[in-house]
């Protein structure tokens, strides 16, 4: 048993693909035929078997390839992983959380043994077997946050809570949708969200902050966010915008299905016990249009959402250049019939 990890790339020849089972478990983010910001936060509890919520920290068939891509990004640009000096304790909190959750959900792949502060961590997919002293940075090859997030899918932001606000004071960010950790580190919740249009006026961030600062230990929360990416690139950072930006000019009616990807972020929020900080894992799921439209309901709904998206949001998400081509392509798969409520395929 266990997961069969795919050999694939998120750059150069872009060999990334989802297996049929992974298409069905894709976290499609639209529960109705239109989209607008909302404080769509709900308790992060275990969901149905075979969904991405089967475990609270999801490991899937892309795990090994994603970790290899992360290592490439970090070798090129070490500033993608930073932790301000007061955040080391929170890094240990995160290490504990991710080791416990991965070992709990995937015992065939990960094993954690703890005897007091003497810990042993076995990560079979990546061929790691390390013993170390919990709390002693000199016993790990990297700081605790970097060590464990080189072995965990998704980006991770660690937020310090003080003065009624959350401060982005540490993070591992290599699979981001166009924001820079190096630039945003040290900012508060409102500041790092400053470039987001419309949501400030709607009071979204004030309500979201109030909720997040009250997240309690043992009661994580989650929300979905989305954007689109041309080619299955994990690294769409502003740092490399001049390298991936030209992809957006390459979309044609013939290659939409292969090139255009829906990018969904499963964001969760966890209180960290020792540091009283919050960790905010941002797990990115990619699916190409050809794969997505194998579910007719998703095809119809995505057509309506993209067609009717307010202009500010389309600009912010970087869809402007290829939106007409995409809408035209999707329209052929929308017979106008009703879609059932909820996220899942029919």
């Amino acid at each position, binding site marked *: 048993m266990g997961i069969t990890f795919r050999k694939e790339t998120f750059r150069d020849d872009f060999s990334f693909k989802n297996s049929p089972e992974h298409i069905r478990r894709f976290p499609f983010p639209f529960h109705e035929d239109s989209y607008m910001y909302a404080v769509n936060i709900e308790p992060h509890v275990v969901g149905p078997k075979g969904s991405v919520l089967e475990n609270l920290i999801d490991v899937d068939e892309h795990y090994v390839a994603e970790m290899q891509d992360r290592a490439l990004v970090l070798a090129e640009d070490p500033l993608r992983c930073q932790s301000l000096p007061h955040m080391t304790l929170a890094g240990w909190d995160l290490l504990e959380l991710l080791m416990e959750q991965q070992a709990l959900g995937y015992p065939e792949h990960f094993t954690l043994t703890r005897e007091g502060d003497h810990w042993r961590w076995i990560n079979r997919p990546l061929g790691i077997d390390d013993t170390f002293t919990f709390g002693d940075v000199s016993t790990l090859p990297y700081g605790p946050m970097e060590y464990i997030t080189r072995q965990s899918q998704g980006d991770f932001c660690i937020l310090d809570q003080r003065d009624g606000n959350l401060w982005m004071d540490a993070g591992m960010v290599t699979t981001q949708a166009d924001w820079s950790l190096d*630039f945003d580190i040290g900012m508060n919740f409102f500041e790092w969200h400053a470039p987001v249009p419309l949501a400030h006026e709607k009071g979204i961030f004030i309500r979201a902050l109030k909720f997040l600062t009250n997240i309690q230990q043992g009661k994580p929360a989650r929300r979905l966010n989305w954007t689109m990416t041309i080619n299955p690139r994990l690294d769409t950072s502003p740092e490399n915008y001049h390298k991936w930006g030209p992809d957006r000019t390459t979309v044609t009616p013939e290659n939409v299905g292969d090139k255009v990807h829906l990018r969904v972020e499963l964001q969760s929020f966890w209180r960290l016990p020792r540091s009283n900080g919050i960790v905010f894992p941002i797990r990115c799921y990619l699916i190409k249009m050809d794969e997505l439209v194998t579910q007719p309901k998703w095809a119809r709904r995505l057509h309506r959402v993209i067609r009717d998206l307010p202009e500010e949001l389309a600009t912010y998400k970087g869809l402007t250049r290829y939106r007409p081509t995409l809408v035209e392509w999707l329209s052929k798969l929308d017979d106008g019939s009703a879609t059932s409520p909820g996220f899942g395929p029919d």
Partner: protein
Amino acid sequence: MAAKSIISRPIYGTLSPQPGKHHLFIADAEGALAITDLAAKAPAGFFGDAHIIFIPGPDGKHVATLEALKPAQFYQGYSFASALPRLKQTLANAHMGLRLYLAGTEGLIGQAMQTALEAGIDHTSMQTEHRGSLARRMQCVHCKGITENVTTQPATCSHCGLLLLVRDHYSRRLAAFQGVCINAEDRSEIPPMEEIFR
């Protein structure tokens, strides 16, 4: 004054005397006038516990005006870089009860704030007042180089040469606005360059 913008763009206030044991002022050029305006509102003896670090503009004005306030310490520097070792030393030896006042150009306020943050002062407790030029310090998000005194939109990165959109998104830690390639998707698109940050 700076136009209304996004939340991460710094907002500057008007200097006012704060309760405290010591008062450290850092100002450049027209920023001196923010200090003299504060002096008009300050209680008697306020400058007896004050230290002023001043970097005059090219015209060398306002030095005598500040000296006339009779601060306990007065320092005139040639540039922020030349004043920096002194500023760091002052902060390293300071005690709680020291209040910080920053006045002048955005570049000066930003760099002095960056140094004070590293010394453990929370940014919300610093008094700031913008006077003079709106020229920006800009970090190129691509090559990470900082370009000083940016006055145009877009602007060319003085390190890697990319043509950058100067955003209002601002980092206190870097003391810089963010510059992002304006024609990354199609380099043949060259928007006109306008002088807007003066």
